[in-house]
């Protein structure tokens, strides 16, 4: 009995703080200690603005964060569903314009990355730096450029990772054999030629960053590697390889779905084409692969995920706190809870409905309960997911944000509208 009590106590302490020492890499602006944060958060409501398009993700958040926040921290989670994260960004900008500073804002926390983070950061509308100051942030691999850079821009402690995603593909094992799958862009090109009308990709553009990512990866393969693309935007490098990319995509065009005259505008459209058997490949960002969409009945149950051998962009998504958040303490506690090993283990399991993968570096977890939860989660990834080792082998980081808008504009011009390439 005594022993059980002690073990239970140890688990609880470990779960509450994850790293017992409380040695911080960073101070939390406005607070003198983590205990003060937890104390102030009591009775607060955290207004968490997040993309609300997936009922599975909504359900996961309410179940796996809402309940423990209430029971263990006396915090009420109020999840605000957004059709697009940029709406929250505009809200913060409006509040700033109206003079709602201090803690007079309305948004406590935003699920964010990329352009939206950059917009708020540039306008100095985020609270921070704080992200390396929460106890569980010690479990994050801050030395990883995929973590400390968001679309190539430094995070600087103004957002804390939640989960990760990596671009890869989905096919239907009832229609294609695993050994026939293309494992590179070159192989995909040959596959398209041999199977006219059976492939398409999302049009790169605002709201379809996955399509842009698909084209970015082609830059890496054609130019012989990802390494040279790391770092600040390089116009010369872009100009050197962009025509090659457009030539390749133009060569595919006549053999694409609808002869490349039109492209699906987003995830949902491409998925529907795949589900209805019009094309053979869907894209996914989820380490659970095809499982979440199979569970929702959106794609055939025989769907499986697969990866190329190289150049698949992976990145992290984050939580940020606006400068005028009324409940900063509750937001900090929530961001810390999200990184707790047992919550992280819950989010990667397809059965729980969340989209994405680990936000922490699982090798940094030392407490036995956390390790156990992680080991169990690893067993439950399901067979609809791509081989994690193959994904890891192909992983590259995203590149400077300037490339994104460049690629989107030039793709529209040269590939979609077919304007003549420069020289």
């Amino acid at each position, binding site marked *: 009995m005594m022993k059980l009590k002690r073990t239970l106590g140890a688990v609880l302490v470990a779960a509450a703080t994850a790293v017992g020492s409380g040695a911080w890499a960073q101070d939390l602006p406005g607070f003198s200690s983590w205990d003060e944060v937890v104390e102030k958060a009591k009775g607060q409501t955290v207004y968490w603005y997040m993309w609300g398009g997936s*009922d599975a993700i909504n359900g996961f958040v309410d179940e796996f964060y809402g309940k423990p926040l209430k029971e263990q921290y006396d915090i009420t989670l109020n999840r605000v569903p957004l059709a697009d994260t940029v709406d929250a960004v505009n809200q913060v900008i*409006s509040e700033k314009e*109206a*003079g*709602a500073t201090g803690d007079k804002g309305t948004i406590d926390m935003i699920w964010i990355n990329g352009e939206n983070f950059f917009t708020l950061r540039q306008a100095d509308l985020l609270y921070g730096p704080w992200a390396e100051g929460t106890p569980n942030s010690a479990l994050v691999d801050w030395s990883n450029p995929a973590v400390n850079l968001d679309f190539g821009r430094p995070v600087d402690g103004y957002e804390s990772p939640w989960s990760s995603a990596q671009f890869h593909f989905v096919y239907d094992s009832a229609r294609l054999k695993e050994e026939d799958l293309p494992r590179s862009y070159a192989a995909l090109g040959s596959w398209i030629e041999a199977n006219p009308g059976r492939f398409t990709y999302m049009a790169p553009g605002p709201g379809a960053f996955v399509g842009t990512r698909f084209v970015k990866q082609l830059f890496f393969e054609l130019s012989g590697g990802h390494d040279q693309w790391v770092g600040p935007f390089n116009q010369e490098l872009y100009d050197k390889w962009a025509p090659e990319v457009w030539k390749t995509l133009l060569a595919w065009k006549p053999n694409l779905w609808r002869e490349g005259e039109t492209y699906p505008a987003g995830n949902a*459209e491409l998925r529907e084409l795949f589900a209805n058997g019009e094309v053979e490949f869907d894209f996914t960002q989820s380490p659970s692969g095809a499982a979440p969409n199979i569970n929702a009945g959106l794609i055939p*149950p025989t769907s499986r995920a697969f990866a190329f051998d190289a150049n698949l962009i992976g990145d992290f998504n984050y939580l940020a706190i606006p400068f005028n958040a009324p409940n900063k303490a509750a937001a900090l506690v929530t961001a810390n809870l999200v990184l707790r090993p047992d919550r992280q283990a819950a989010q990667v399991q397809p059965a729980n409905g969340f989209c994405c993968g680990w936000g922490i570096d699982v090798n940094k977890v030392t407490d036995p309960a956390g390790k156990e939860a992680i080991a169990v989660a690893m067993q439950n990834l399901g067979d609809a997911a791509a081989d994690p080792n193959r994904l890891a082998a192909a992983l590259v980081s995203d590149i400077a944000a300037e490339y994104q808008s460049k690629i989107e504009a030039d793709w529209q011009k040269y590939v979609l509208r077919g304007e003549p390439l420069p020289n």
Partner: protein
Amino acid sequence: MSDLTLSSTTSSSNVRARRGFGRVVFYLTIFVMCLMLILPVIAFFINAFAFRWFYPQFVPNEWSLQAWERLRLIPRAGDRSLEGFISLWASVPDVVSALGLSLFIGAVVTGFSIIIGLPAARALGLYRFRGKRIIEFMVITPTIVPPIAFSLGLNINFIRWDLALEAAGFPLDLSGSIIGVSIVHLVPVMPYVVLTLSGVFANYNPDFEAQARSLGAGPVRIFWDVTLPAILPGLFVAALFAFLVSWSQYLLTFLIGQGRVITLPMLLFAAAGSGNNAVIAALSLIFIAPAILILLVASRFLSGESSAVGGFGRV
């Protein structure tokens, strides 16, 4: 004589034929129109209960309640007992609270729009005065100006007023609150209410009021016993418009409510991005159900026979 008889029979049978043909066209038109109205609703029903409905299935091979489970309106299989339902609904699913809020805001907006719109409509319908055209034009401008044009600026002003009110010791939130959202819903609602009611008053004869007054009735009695019964059908139609316009607001609710005032359209727009057709269809059914119910109840006021558009003038 026989000629005459013959010609008269021919002409009457012609008339009958024409009538018969006309009737066919008439009923065919009605049928096609009904089909156009009903087909989308049928499509929603099929989608809301279909599971893995892919090409080339013409009708779904599999049916499921998963969309309704995902909306947390029906417990998962195994929990579908009375207790299961009670405990699920006791947790107030998002859809239920959004439905309630939409109904509440719709009712409040309808009430206030009538209170504001009635005097304006009476003036516009009964009297001629200088500048009437300009006022009429201003009344309908909200239907011309896109909401995004004024709502962003309005939101900033609401936030400013909130701050000023708080500083003055009257903490009242307009921005991000039900009050603010209700106020801003009045903007697109008012043109419909004023236009409908001024049409009613255009055919209204105020002499009846004079008559009642000469018989000794006070203003309240006159309104209650003379004016109100005369305009009631028109009032009903105006209220219907007001409710439906408020019911379907997304952009204004989002911008002024700051995502905190979660009405049904907010959930619908968020879900539409997901591409889960079953969930979208189920939400759509919930969204259109009250509208259809109200329409059915109100249909007799909307038919040509009612005095909704005629008012006293035709009696």
